[in-house]
């Protein structure tokens, strides 16, 4: 899947650039992407080290184990083989819910590592985790509220409830489509 997405995106982009006679523009855009990858990694590094450090403290205090035991049963409904990943999955979903984006990513990466079986292939649980993450269930969509406030909205919080309902619908769609598609994509 990834090779097709990457392939189609780059070929389409390059084709449009060449059609416009701007070959250098295509290369510039690609290089710029690489540069933003480096910038992003560096800006991620701080929060990432912080949350990985805190998670390790919680782990050694035995709290990660407790959380995993607590969440194993409820998580089984959507991710039957979560196992060790139960704790980081819970932390990731909780961080997303409370709008802590920079804590959610390290927990999510940890969850993926625990779910991984080292065969270079996404398991059903990994796909479910990605799909659930893309439904963006959040208590308060803080960045959107910030933009609305900046754009002089009289009621910036008006959108909170519809956003939440739409996110829940997206999460349900993620669960259902994962269940169905998991049988199609081997």
């Amino acid at each position, binding site marked *: *899947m*990834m090779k097709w*997405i*990457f392939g189609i*995106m*780059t070929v*389409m*982009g390059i084709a*449009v650039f060449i059609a416009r006679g701007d070959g250098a*523009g*295509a290369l510039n855009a*690609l290089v*710029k*992407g690489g540069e*933003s*990858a*480096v910038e*992003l*990694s560096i800006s991620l*590094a701080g929060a990432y*080290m912080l949350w*990985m*450090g*805190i998670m*390790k*403290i919680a782990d050694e*205090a035995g709290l990660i184990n407790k959380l995993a035991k607590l969440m194993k049963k409820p998580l089984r409904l959507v991710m039957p083989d979560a196992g060790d990943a139960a704790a980081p999955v819970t932390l990731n979903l909780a961080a997303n819910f409370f709008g802590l984006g920079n804590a959610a990513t*390290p927990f999510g*990466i940890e969850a*993926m*590592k625990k*779910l*991984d079986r080292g065969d*270079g*292939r*996404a398991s059903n649980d990994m*796909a*479910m985790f*990605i799909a659930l*993450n*893309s*439904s963006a269930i959040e208590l308060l*969509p803080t960045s*959107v509220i910030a933009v*609305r406030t900046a*754009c002089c909205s009289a009621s*910036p919080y*008006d*959108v909170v409830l*519809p*956003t939440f309902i*739409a996110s829940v619908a*997206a*999460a349900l*769609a*993620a669960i259902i*489509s*994962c269940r169905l598609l998991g049988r199609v*994509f*081997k």
Partner: protein
Amino acid sequence: MKAANIAVPALVGILIVYALIKKVNVYKAFVDGAAEAVPQLIAILPYLAAMLGAISLLRASGAVEFFTGVMRPVTDRLGISPALVPLIALRPFSGSASLAMLKDILTEFGADSRVGRAASVLVGSTETVFYTTAVYFGAVGVTKTRHAIPAALISGAVGAAVGLLLVR
């Protein structure tokens, strides 16, 4: 929002006190955890470079605008405002670009207009699927992503559709 501002640092503080009572060497544990972060980020970097490169190329080429132009008859028939179509098309690729576009829409149509509220709900209830997928699958070196992206995109489409219906 106030409560969250206090709750998270308070939880971290309580965690450290609890760990100290449990006789955990909190300093060493923190450093050990942080040390795992650095090689992990380096492992993700090439995946990010590939995905962000492709996204940047697609954005700069104007292919997104071309695509929204082609889709125009369909989106018009569905009753989706033309201002929202590029936002829907761009949302799975770039968070910063969709926030910038949201700002443009809110400035042009007004934050409390129907289009403005619809755009806000769209951005809030969907996620940058291609970016998160690159990071999360990159972390474990998974390239056979199976149904993850289709399911994520279906979920995003359902979220967008419900969002649009709710602000109608």
